Every structure is written in structure tokens, then in C-alpha cells.
């Protein structure tokens, strides 16, 4: 009983903390928009050339599938900060001194995650009912056919995602931006592998199960039926034929297959509890590298650095005791001429700040990508390598605009003279330079091939990425938004060469003056939005 009460209060406090944030309101706004898009048929579900009559079963199914896709992706990024927040606010250190055990703590956090995502699903369930009236084809609202897909398709999948978010947060390597990027690839895998595997126990989102059972009904009703299931923004004036679908007969075996994901979620939390360090980085199963008091890796590269490092390592001991005995050091006055702003110095400082936090292997991979770009012909480097070259620094860009708040240096920097005019553009330009340096192999290849259009696209892409990162960082206060948006955009645009979304202009086919103009405008607009956001922060 006591455990239940602890879980209840833990999950409730965490849930309330999150739903009272502005960011949750924005998430709800996006949810309402998605609901609207489904209601007005901008987003739709189809089977070959067929769509269901808009009765409770069909609108419920269609909305539940959209909810599952949307919330399993966006919801993960929304909820994946619950343990991180306890670390950042240092509430975790207090919790670590309480009798609550790791499993209870993480289970409470997963419940809160599921609660937040369930609210989003609830909004979409209400939207489904509204959608049935909007369509006006069948006005009889049948609750079970309407709600069953939400309860048995969406919720089990989201329970898994809720547990996975907690699991990611317990592993130091997956807690930050790297985990955010990795989840996207995992999500793509879940979305595509599940239906293809024809195995309900590997089908987390439940789409394989839905497709196979719906097709049985379709074949029975429509012997000429052929084609696969599709869901998304299906544009064009394609006319669909209708079929009547009355809903699933939820047999016990089907229900069990879905409830199985609750068990998987619980197993994941159990595993997370084993790995969780309980806010003691020295105790975790997979320990994060603490920032060493010793010299950094590049101090070992040169003898003079080694000597300095040895002197440093001797250092701290003499400090405290000597303080009072030491003669007073007098500060020399600064001449007014010394205080002359130099843009290059701020730019270099920003660049150093960006690059200094990277480990040695990051540079090894970056160098590998650079060499590969130089070793390939221009068009291959542009088409196949540039997307990966500009994925690698994603965590550098996602820190832009958020670093000051994250490390609590905002008051120090914002109180400096002309911070908005001096430091902020330097930070933006440093982001552009990172893109140019990373892509310099591709750029050189394009230059040698005299592909001026490709070079122009490359330059616009570099400027656009930095502007997007800065705007999203400043306004969201976290790198997560950029990481999530960028990776999705990257996957659809540059990787799958969607012409309008390919901001890297990875092929001559994706290059058009109209799209180029759009990204130039977007880059300047985003930079302007970022400036407004920073101005708001400075004047807060």
C-alpha cells in the first residue's frame, strides 16, 4: 500500500510539474492541430484505393493510428527529461537520501511519462468523436469501436515509449542529445520493422496487427482489393472508394498481444533500475566519464603541454592554506584603449567553446568524413556523404542558444555590453563555420567540379542550419527541439531527397531557385526570430 502511495505521489508531482509548463501547452496546440488535420482529411488512412466509411470504428482507428505515430515520436522528446530534470534541479540528490528504491522511482517516472502522453491521446480521442460528426456519414457514436484502438493500440505502444524514455535517461550516454538522435532511428525501425515482421510480439506500434486483420475483412468484402496500408499527408485529387468497417473483434489473443507491450515496458523499467546510478555518477553500472581534474587529452600531445600538465596536477593543494599568508596582489588599472571590442576574438572564443567539449573520437570521425568527401566525386560526395557530414555536428548545433541557460552563464553574458550585437552574431557565425568546416571536403569537390549551383546550395544549407539551431535553442531553451526537428527533416529531405525539404541540396534535382530562395529567406527569418528571442531573454 505504501509503495502504491509513493508511486502515486511521485508520478502525480512529476505529471503536474510537466503539464503546467508552457512547452506542454505548445504540445497540446500541436496535438489539436493534428486532430484538426485528420478531421478535415489532410491526414488520412487508406487501404489501396479504399477508405472506410466515417463511422465510430473507422474514425477511431484512423485517429488512434495518427496518435500512435505522432505521440510515439514527439511524445518521447516531450517526456524524456524527467530524470534529467531531477539531476539538473538537484532534487535528485535529495531523493537519493530518501528510502525510495530505484524501481519505485523509475516506475513512478514512467507512469508520469505515460500520463503526459495519455493526455495527448485523450485530446485526439475527443477529436475523433468530433471528426465523426464533422464527416456526417454516420452519426451513431459507438464508444467501444471508437475508443478501443486508443486503448489497445496507442496506449500499449506509448507505455513502451514511456519506459524507453526512462531507460534512455538512466544511461548517461543516452541521456543527452546522442540519445535523442538514436531514438529517431529506433523509431523508424519500430515503424517499419513491426508491420513487415508479421510477428505481433515485434510489432510495438500494432500496425502489422491492424493491417493483417483489416485486410482479411477487405478481401471478404471486396474480392478485387489490392494494395497496402498508407497513412499520412496524402495529397492530390485521388478519389477513394468506400468500404464499411465495423471495428475489430478484440479476441483475447489480440488483446494479449497488445498487453504484452505493458510487460515489455515493465521489463525495461526493471533493467533501467539495475543500471540507474541513483544520482551518484560514481556508482552507476555504466558510468559517465567525470570531468577529470587532470589535464585534457591534448595535453599529452606535446612535451611542453605535458610539463604544464604536471605543474597543474601538483596545483590545488597549496591553494587554500596559502591564501591568507600570501601578500595582497594588486590589480593594474586597465587603460580605456584595452577595452576595444574585436569581433574576431569573440568569434574565436565561440568556436573554441563549441569545439572544446568534443571528445577525441568525434574529431576522428569528422576527419574520416572529410577524407571520404575528398576521395569521392563531387556529385557522390554531395548526394551520399553531405547528409552524414552535416548530421555529425548535430549536438554542437543543438547547444546553440541554450548553452547560457544550461550552464547558468546567462547573467554573466547578458550583463556584458552589447551582448546582443556582439556575442550573439558570433555564436551564429560559429555555427555556420562548423558547417562549412565539416563540409569543406564536399565544398572543395564542388569547387573543383565548378558546380556553382551546388556550392550556392551548400552555402545556403550551412547558413540555414545555424539559423534553425539558434532560433530553436533560444526559444525552446533546450537542444531537444532542434535535435528532434532536424533529424526528422534530415531523414525526409536530404536522405530521401524530398525536393522541398532537402535543405542541403544534395543533388542537382533538388536544386531549384525557388527552393533556394525559400531557404535563404527562412535562414534570415529564423535568425531574426532568434535575435528577438535573445532580446527577450536579455530584457527579462
Amino acid at each position: 500500500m505504501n509503495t502504491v502511495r509513493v508511486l502515486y505521489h511521485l508520478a502525480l508531482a512529476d505529471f503536474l510539474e510537466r503539464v503546467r509548463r508552457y512547452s506542454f501547452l505548445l504540445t497540446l496546440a500541436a496535438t489539436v492541430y493534428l486532430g484538426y488535420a485528420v478531421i478535415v482529411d489532410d491526414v488520412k488512412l487508406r487501404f489501396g484505393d479504399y477508405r472506410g466509411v466515417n463511422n465510430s470504428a473507422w474514425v477511431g482507428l484512423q485517429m488512434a493510428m495518427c496518435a500512435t505515430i505522432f505521440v510515439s515520436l514527439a511524445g518521447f522528446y516531450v517526456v524524456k527529461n524527467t530524470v534529467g530534470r531531477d539531476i539538473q534541479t538537484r532534487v535528485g540528490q535529495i531523493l537519493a537520501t530518501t528510502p525510495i528504491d530505484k524501481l519505485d522511482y523509475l516506475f513512478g517516472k514512467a507512469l508520469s511519462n505515460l500520463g503526459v502522453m495519455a493526455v495527448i491521446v485523450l485530446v485526439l480521442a475527443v477529436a475523433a468523436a468530433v471528426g465523426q460528426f464533422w464527416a456526417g456519414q454516420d452519426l451513431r457514436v459507438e464508444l467501444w469501436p471508437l475508443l478501443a484502438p486508443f486503448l489497445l493500440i496507442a496506449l500499449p505502444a506509448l507505455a513502451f515509449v514511456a519506459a524507453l524514455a526512462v531507460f534512455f535517461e538512466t544511461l548517461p550516454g543516452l541521456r543527452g542529445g546522442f540519445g535523442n538522435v538514436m531514438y529517431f532511428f529506433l523509431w523508424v525501425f519500430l515503424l517499419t520493422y513491426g508491420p513487415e515482421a508479421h510477428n505481433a510480439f515485434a510489432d510495438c506500434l500494432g500496425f502489422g496487427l491492424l493491417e493483417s486483420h483489416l485486410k482479411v475483412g477487405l478481401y471478404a468484402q471486396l474480392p478485387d482489393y489490392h494494395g497496402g496500408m498508407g497513412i499520412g499527408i496524402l495529397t492530390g485529387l485521388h478519389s477513394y472508394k468506400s468500404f464499411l468497417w465495423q471495428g475489430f473483434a478484440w479476441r483475447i489473443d489480440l488483446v494479449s498481444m497488445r498487453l504484452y507491450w505493458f510487460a515489455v515496458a515493465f521489463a525495461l523499467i526493471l533493467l533501467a533500475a539495475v543500471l540507474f546510478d541513483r544520482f551518484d555518477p560514481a556508482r552507476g553500472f555504466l558510468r559517465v566519464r567525470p570531468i577529470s581534474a587532470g589535464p585534457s587529452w591534448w595535453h599529452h600531445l606535446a612535451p611542453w603541454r605535458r610539463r604544464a600538465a604536471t605543474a597543474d596536477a601538483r596545483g590545488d593543494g597549496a591553494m587554500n592554506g596559502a591564501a591568507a599568508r600570501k601578500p595582497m596582489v594588486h590589480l593594474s588599472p586597465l587603460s580605456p584603449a584595452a577595452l576595444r571590442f574585436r569581433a574576431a576574438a569573440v568569434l574565436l572564443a565561440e568556436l573554441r567553446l563549441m569545439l572544446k567539449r568534443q571528445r577525441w573520437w568525434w574529431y576522428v570521425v569528422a576527419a574520416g568524413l572529410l577524407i571520404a568527401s575528398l576521395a569521392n566525386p563531387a556529385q557522390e560526395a554531395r548526394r551520399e556523404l553531405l547528409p552524414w557530414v552535416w548530421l555529425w555536428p548535430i549536438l554542437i548545433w543543438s547547444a546553440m542558444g541554450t548553452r547560457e541557460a544550461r550552464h547558468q552563464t546567462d547573467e554573466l553574458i547578458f550583463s556584458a555590453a552589447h551582448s546582443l550585437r556582439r556575442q550573439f552574431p558570433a555564436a551564429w557565425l560559429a555555427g555556420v563555420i562548423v558547417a562549412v568546416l565539416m563540409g569543406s571536403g564536399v565544398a572543395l569537390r564542388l569547387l573543383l567540379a565548378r558546380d556553382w549551383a551546388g556550392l550556392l546550395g551548400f552555402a545556403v544549407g550551412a547558413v540555414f542550419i545555424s539559423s534553425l539551431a539558434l532560433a530553436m535553442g533560444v526559444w525552446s531553451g533546450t537542444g531537444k527541439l532542434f535535435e528532434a526537428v532536424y533529424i526528422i527533416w534530415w531523414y525526409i529531405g536530404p536522405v530521401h531527397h524530398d525536393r522541398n525539404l532537402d535543405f542541403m541540396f544534395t543533388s542537382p534535382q533538388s536544386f531549384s531557385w525557388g527552393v533556394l530562395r525559400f531557404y535563404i529567406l527562412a535562414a534570415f527569418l529564423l535568425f531574426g526570430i532568434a535575435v528577438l528571442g535573445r532580446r527577450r531573454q536579455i530584457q527579462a
Partner: protein
Amino acid sequence: MYSGKVWALKQFSLELGPGVLGLVGPNGAGKTTLMRILATVTRATEGRITWNGVDTARSPDALSAELGYLPQDFGVYPNLNAIEFLEYMAAVRGLTGRPARRRIDELLEVVNLVEARKRPLGSFSGGMKQRIGIAQALLNDPKLLIVDEPTAGLDPEERVHFRNLLSELAGQRVVILSTHIVSDVEATATQMAVISHGRLVTHTSPEALLKSVAGKVWEWVIPSSALAKVKESFLLSAATRRSDGVHVRVVDEKSPHPDATPIPPTLEDAYLDCISAHREAAAT
């Protein structure tokens, strides 16, 4: 004013010249809000602050070019070492090249971090981070130095060292020192401002504040069992347990007990008397 119509500061007027102003007041009095407004980090909803006649809300850069600021809560970039962090802050504050390097070297000596200058800041203790904060506040040789709880986390020797530094710096500049530690103010301040509930209670010199409680501080010895009664009845400034009983120190107009003897007041006695009088006046 905060949202919800709560005034952080109200009817607050203060004029400052060179020297150290000790800003003291109870928790939630508005000290940090005042510091943030003065440092142009927060914009006041009403009122005006001028620096050499220039409105800081309209032209914040006129002040921030001459400002050194150490906030109460601040962070550092954990992967940079002390030199790199100070070089970054110097560049942001418009100080670069040889003068910046010379200034950073001097500051690292002043805050006693020369030996640790190449260690990543992420490995620094709380006190060492505080000293880095002090160093960055002094980078641009500020004419106005605002320090909010600067000695929090410093060991006693470093605290003494910092107090001496503040006194030395105060010569030709304005230093505003906000603290809960009255002994810091006692050691450094040339002026004092006591604030409570967002209002200025008094702006005076430490000597004048001490004079206001001269002959009003009493000490006598009581048994432990009588301590609660004394706390209820008088403004208790200190209670020290010794072998002969509890030595209580009380601020009162009249002798509180036949055994009480008048003793020289401290700034802490004067501060408590000042705050207590303000609370009583606000209650009536």
C-alpha cells in the same frame, strides 16, 4: 513588480558614490532583484536608474561597459579551463589581446587559482568556482562592481582575502555587496543599506547604525530553562552556552534584567534592531 501584483521593490530611492555599499536584509527582502535590476539583467516595471546621468533602462550598454557583476547563482562551462573561460568572458566584455592576457594572469593570482588555471572548470570545487566568478567580474576593471553573496562557499581564509580585495578596489569605484553575512559588511562597507519587504529601511554608514544602538545591548547569564522565555520577551541577538549558563545578548531600550550589563554593540545587533523596528512599524 512580479506577475500577480507582488512588488519586489517599492518606494526605493538610493544615490551612490565611490565606496562599498553593504546591502543587507532578510530573505526575500528584494536584494537579488535590486542587484539584477542594477546590473541590467532585469528590467524594472517602474522607476528609473541612472548611471552618470544616463537612464540604464534606455541605454543599458552605457552601464554594462563599466559593470562587473557576480550573480548569486551562476555557472561555468565545465569543459573549459580557468584561462579559457576568462578569455571567453574577456572577449565578450570587449577585452582582448595582450591586455586581456595580462589581466587574466593578475586576476588568477588575486583569486589564488594560478596553480589550477589549466584544470577543467568541471572539476572545480564550489569555492573555486566562486573565485572564478569573482575574477570574471573584475575582468574589465569595472567602475561599478555588483557582487551578490560573493563569499558564499569560500573558506574563512579566502573570505578574508576577498574582503581585503573589496576594500582595496573600493577606492575610485562603486561596489555593491549584497550579503547575509554581516561580518563581511562590517569588514568592508563604507555605507550600508538595509532593505526589508522591498523597501529601503535605512541608508547610512555602519558607524551611524552602530551609534543608533549604543547603550541598548545587554548581556547577562540565565539557566538553559529560561532561554525560551527570554526569546519570547526580548530581541535576542545571541545566546552562547558556557559552563556557568547561557550568556544571552539582547537589544532593548531599557535594562531587561537586574543582572544585565550594557555591552558595546556590533553591526549585527544594530541590523536586528533596525529590522525589528521596521517590522513593528509595518505591523501597526
